């Protein structure tokens, strides 16, 4: 068994579960049943953890490549654009979820709903961009 492939696979597991957390958590927080604020906090922590996991494991893909070959993955064009979209989504997701956890109880119900909708949109966008990153690189 190649150690490099094992590292990629283990990192991919983390990345996949991060994706499940950001999409599933946001979906559950936003739709179809409106959950009360107290029930949303654990979901928000799950989504925050998911976005952090996405960012860290995404960077780790590059780190594994660099460790073994001294260079990052060779991607171009649409793949680079898709990667930038994913990175932006992760960054926005972390900021938005952290803000919700810190100040969400002071916001109006409409704003809180809006943030969950935005988190869901970011998650779907990131997941879609992942498909382009996978097949255009």
């Amino acid at each position, binding site marked *: 068994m*190649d150690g490099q*492939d094992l590292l990629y696979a283990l990192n991919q597991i983390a990345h996949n579960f991060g994706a499940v957390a950001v999409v599933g958590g946001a979906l559950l927080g936003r739709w179809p049943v409106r959950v009360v604020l107290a029930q949303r906090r654990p979901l928000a922590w799950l989504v925050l953890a998911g976005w952090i996991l996405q960012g860290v494991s995404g960077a780790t893909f590059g780190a594994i490549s660099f460790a*073994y*070959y001294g260079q990052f993955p060779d*991607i171009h064009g649409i793949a680079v654009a898709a990667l930038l979209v994913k990175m932006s989504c992760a960054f926005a997701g972390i900021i938005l979820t952290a803000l919700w956890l810190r100040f969400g109880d002071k916001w109006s119900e409409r704003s809180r709903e809006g943030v969950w909708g935005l988190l869901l949109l970011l998650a779907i966008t990131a997941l879609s961009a992942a498909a382009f990153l996978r097949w255009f690189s």
Partner: protein
Amino acid sequence: MVACHLPVKGGAQHPHRSLLWLLNRSTAEIADMRMPVMSRLAFFISLLFSGLTLAAESMVTISAPADGATLDAMTENAITYEVVPGPKGDHSHLYVDGKEDAVLRKLKGSYTLPTLTAGEHNICIKVVNKGHVPIGVEKCVKVMVQ
């Protein structure tokens, strides 16, 4: 059936039990050897790893255009190649003058080159791993476009 019984008790090595000899034996023959359980287990594990190292080495062949060839700028030019990804590689990338132009998922075939301006160009095919990182195996040709 078993054509050769090996006196392997006590860890003694048969003089003919080389890798080549092993490769010529069927699995049934190997399994039927009179070997202690642990030796047999160790043997199969070593066979597995030896199989990994015996996998074909990475290689790129560009059959056309030839190195130093002259291409016509007004016609559609293609590169004909064959890639053996080997144990570390997965697929290959095509580069024109150091800039990645395409992902070559087919291991053997032909790819239409982008329009090349007049002058000298360097066309390379690099073997990359599943993470799209070049593993250091590549083939390049220099062409002159007129």
